[in-house]
C-alpha cells in the first residue's frame, strides 16, 4: 500500500518533497494545538500512574497528586514482587506463548489448504472461519465453562490456552491466507514438478515466505491473549493459576487503599509490553492493525 507512494519516479518524488516543504513554511497551528491537547489527555493519566507508584503511602495522602514525589520509593514495587508477581508473569508467558505457537502452526496449515485447493470441504471451512470474525467471544463463555469443567481442565493453564486458540484461529487463518495468496503459483508448481509434497511445500516454501505475516499475526494474537481478562476470570480460580490481568484485579481488591501499590502493579504488568514497544515498535504497530489497515 505504502509502496505505491515510494515507487514513483524520482522526478515525482522530488516534487512531493517540495510540496511538503512548502507546507512546512505555513505551520498548521490549529492542528498542532489539537495534537498537544490530545497528548495531554494521554500523558497526564500515564504520568499520574508512574509518579504515584513511586510515592510512599503517607505521601499519597498529603502531597499534590501531580507533583513528583519528594522522596521517591521503590517500596511499592517490592510489595508487588513479594506478592508472587513473578509467578503471574510466568503464567502469562506460558499461556501466551503456547496459544500463539499452536494457533499460528494450525492456522498456517489451514491457510495453505485454503489457498492451494478448491474442494468443497476447504471452501466451506473458509466461510466458517469468516463467520467466526463476527461472533462475540463473550457469548460463548457459559457453554465453555460447562465444557472446560466437564473435561477437568477448570482452573488449569491448559484450560486457558485451548479456548484462546479456538478464538484466535479465524482471524489468523484469514490474514495468513491473504498473504499466501500473493505467493506466485509458479513457485509451488516448480516444487511440485521436483516431486515435493504439500508438507514439504508448506515447510520450505510457504513458511519462509510468509514470515512477515507470521510475525505480524503472532503479535496480534499474543497481545490479545496477554491482555485477555474474560477467560481467566471464568476459567481459573486459584492464585497459582493467575495470569497478569487477573492478578492485577485481585491485587486491587486486596490492597484497595494502597493506591501507590496498586499502580506499581499496573506499571509492572505493562512493562514487558512496553519493552517490546521500545525495541520493536514497527512490528507492534503492524501487529495491532493486522488485517484492518487495508
Amino acid at each position: 500500500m505504502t509502496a505505491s507512494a515510494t515507487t514513483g519516479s524520482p522526478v515525482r518524488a522530488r516534487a512531493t518533497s517540495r510540496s511538503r516543504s512548502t507546507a512546512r513554511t505555513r505551520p498548521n497551528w490549529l492542528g498542532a494545538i489539537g495534537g498537544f491537547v490530545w497528548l495531554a489527555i494521554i500523558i497526564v493519566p500515564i504520568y499520574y500512574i508512574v509518579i504515584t507508584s513511586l510515592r510512599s503511602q503517607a505521601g499519597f495522602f498529603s502531597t499534590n497528586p501531580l507533583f513528583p514525589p519528594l522522596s521517591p520509593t521503590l517500596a511499592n514495587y517490592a510489595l508487588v514482587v513479594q506478592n508472587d508477581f513473578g509467578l503471574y508473569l510466568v503464567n502469562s508467558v506460558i499461556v501466551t506463548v503456547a496459544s500463539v505457537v499452536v494457533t499460528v502452526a494450525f492456522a498456517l496449515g489451514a491457510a495453505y489448504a485454503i489457498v492451494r485447493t478448491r474442494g468443497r470441504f476447504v471452501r466451506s471451512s473458509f466461510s466458517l472461519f469468516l463467520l467466526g470474525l463476527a461472533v462475540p467471544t463473550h457469548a460463548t463463555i457459559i457453554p465453555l465453562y460447562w465444557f472446560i469443567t466437564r473435561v477437568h481442565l477448570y482452573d488449569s493453564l491448559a484450560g486457558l490456552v485451548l479456548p484462546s486458540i479456538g478464538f484466535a484461529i479465524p482471524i489468523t487463518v484469514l490474514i495468513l491466507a491473504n498473504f499466501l495468496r500473493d505467493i506466485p503459483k509458479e513457485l509451488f508448481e516448480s516444487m511440485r514438478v521436483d516431486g515435493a509434497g504439500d508438507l514439504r511445500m508448506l515447510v520450505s516454501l510457504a513458511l519462509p515466505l510468509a514470515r512477515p505475516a507470521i510475525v505480524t499475526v503472532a503479535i496480534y494474537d499474543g497481545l490479545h491473549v496477554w491482555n485477555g481478562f474474560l477467560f481467566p476470570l471464568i476459567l481459573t480460580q486459584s492464585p497459582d493459576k493467575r495470569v497478569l490481568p487477573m492478578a492485577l484485579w485481585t491485587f486491587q481488591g486486596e490492597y484497595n487503599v494502597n493506591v501507590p501499590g496498586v499502580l506499581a502493579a499496573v506499571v509492572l504488568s505493562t512493562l514487558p509490553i512496553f519493552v517490546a514497544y521500545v525495541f520493536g515498535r514497527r512490528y507492534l504497530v503492524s501487529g495491532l492493525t493486522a488485517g484492518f489497515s487495508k
Partner: protein
Amino acid sequence: MTTIPASRSGAPLRRPRPALAPLLAVPALVMYVVFAILPLGGAVVLSFAQWDGLSQITWAGLGNWTSVLSDPVTWNAFVLTGKIMLVSVVVQTPISLLLGVFTAGRQRYREVLAVLYFVPLLLSSAAVAIAFKAILDPNFGVAAALGLPFLKQDWLGNPDLVLYVVIFVIAWQFVPFHTLLYQAGVRQIPSSLYEAATIDGAGRVQQFFYVTLPQLRNTIVTSGTLMVTGSLTYFDAVFVLTGGGPGYATRLLPLDMYLTGFTANQMGPASVLAVILVVVGLALAFVLTKFTGFARMQSDQEGV
C-alpha cells in the same frame, strides 16, 4: 482414489501423492469448532435449560426467554449498549480521524507525538480500568491536583455521569488504535491529488474536505464497523471500573450476561442474553459488511 491408473504401455505411472492439502485445514478447524462454534450452539441449548453452574442441568422450556425478555433490566442493558455504541462512534471517529491526518504528516514533532499517542494500547483493559479508578478519585486523583471544582465529581458513583466516564475511558483506550488506521489510510492517498488541488488553489481546509475526507471513505467504514461490533464486547474495562453499577447504570449487555450467569448463578437466562448478543452481533456485522462491500466496489482511487 486408491486405484492407481496405469499408462497404456503397462508401465506404472509415477505414484501420485495423496492429496494432503485439505487435511492441513483439519487441526485448525477442529480447535475452532470445538472451542468457538460448538459453544455457540451450546448457548442456544442452555438458553432453554435451568442450571446454576454446579448441579444437574434441567429442562426449562421457554421460561428463560419469557423471563429475560420481560425483565426491565434486559431492556435497560439494550438501551445502554445502544447508547454507548452510538456515542462512542460519534466521539471516537472525529478525534481518531483528525489525529490520523495529523500524525500522517512527516514533521518530526508529529512523529514523536504519534509514538506517545500509542502508549494506551500497551496497557491491558484491566490495567486501564484500575488506573482510572485512582485517577478519577475526587480526593486523591487528578481533579484534586488541578483544583478545579467542576472536576471534583464522584465520577464513578454518580449514575448520571458514570456512563459518560465509561465512554471516555474506552475512548482513551481505543482512539489510538483507530488513529493508526486513519494514519495508514491518509498515507495511502496519492500525493498527486494534493498537488492537483494545490494548483487549483485549494487551501488546507478545502484539501481536507475535498481530497482527504472522500479518500478516507473505506477507512471510515472499516473503523466504524470495528467500533460498532467492538462495543458489543465492552466488558473487561467496564467490569473492573464499575462492575455494572452504580445500580444498573453501566450494566451493558455483556455485563448483564456475566452477572446473571456467574454472580446470580442463573446460567439459563444468561444464555438467553448470550444468544441475543450473538444475534445482534451477526446482524450488525451483516448489515455493515453489506455496506462495506458496497463501498469497496467503488475504488478509492477511481479516476486517479
